[in-house]
């Protein structure tokens, strides 16, 4: 698969409302990796059954099943966060990037698995948003969130906007423009070198 930043950006879009904190990003990132691994197993099992045209639908039902298992584990480990992320645990199981990663596996040497490359991006973006919005970094704990204050006063300065869905989309747009600028400059530098 080609390294296409647009696919990455828009795979992040459905998770934007949920990934406003590092703790949420971590939980959703692990969820995506779990779905990927279980999806590979289900794909092989379904291929062996040779179901014909109904194969993709069976794969989706199995992915919904692995999302249910993940949600059950989340309810046991982090009961408070499982309520906040209830909808997104299921939505991320049906994401385009995940299905693309499962279908294109195994990838040829030198190429990367989209979902594996996407998870660090999701975690970094959620950490950045939380840091920009409230100056904290949070980790999941059974009672909810454990917040580590990095910069006091951030939430009082009106920066909490970056933690909202609107703020995150604008932030993503700015980051995309910076990424384009850097890539263009690097390409120019390589051409001149």
């Amino acid at each position, binding site marked *: 698969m080609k390294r296409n930043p647009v696919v990455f*950006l*828009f795979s992040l879009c459905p998770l934007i409302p949920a990934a406003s904190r590092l703790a949420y990003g971590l939980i959703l990132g692990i969820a995506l990796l779990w779905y990927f691994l279980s999806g590979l197993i289900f794909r092989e099992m379904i291929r062996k059954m040779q179901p014909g045209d109904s194969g993709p639908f069976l794969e989706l039902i199995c992915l919904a099943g692995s999302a249910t298992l993940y949600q059950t584990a989340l309810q046991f480990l982090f009961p408070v966060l499982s309520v906040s992320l209830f909808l997104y645990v299921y939505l991320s199981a049906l994401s385009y990037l995940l299905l693309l990663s499962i279908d294109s596996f195994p990838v040829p040497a030198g190429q990367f698995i989209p979902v594996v490359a996407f998870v660090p991006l999701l975690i970094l973006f959620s950490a950045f948003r939380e840091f920009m919005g409230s100056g904290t970094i949070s980790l999941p704990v059974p009672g909810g969130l454990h917040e580590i204050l990095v910069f006091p006063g951030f939430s009082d300065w009106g920066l909490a906007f970056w933690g909202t869905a609107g703020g995150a989309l604008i932030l993503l747009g700015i980051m995309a423009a910076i990424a*384009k600028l850097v890539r263009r400059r690097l390409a120019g530098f390589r051409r001149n070198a």
Partner: protein
Amino acid sequence: MLYIEDVFFYSVSCSTLLVYGLGLEKSFFESRPGSSFLVRIPAVALECLLSVSLLWFPASAVLVPSSFACLLPMATVAVCSIVSLLIQILVPSLSKTTAGERLFYFGTVFLSLSEAASFLDALCIAAATIVSFTLATGTLFTVRSRLSTSIVPADWKGAPLVLVSMGLLCIGMYSADVSWWLQEVFH
């Protein structure tokens, strides 16, 4: 009035597209100049409303009371897939489904079943999601059409500016929630 408020809430002030993220990536791709997203709207609406109608009673009368609510996501995917196949067989001209649309469709049905308190409420949420998607995609389509004829810096062309527009649209739609005149209308 309660149902109108429901539709307004989920389509504008708490837009399922921008606040829940349902169909956000689809909205980006469908808002490109030359896109014919409106043609697909009736088919998606039909699929969503039919699936919600078929799932509501088994879910509320069997799955939830007998503590089998955990089967709801699988039941949603199964019923949505069957409904989608049925529509493909009955109306072949509406059979072109993309991966982004599938996520939007399953997500809409699942959200309607999870958040609604009654059958009519569930239908309202599903309808509001379609309205929200149409409203935001139409607005983005207009924004992108204007952008395609504007002179913008090369680094901001395409995805960056569309994302910023989506963010501004999100703020604009959310403002309905705090506007005093809308509160007066609904009370």
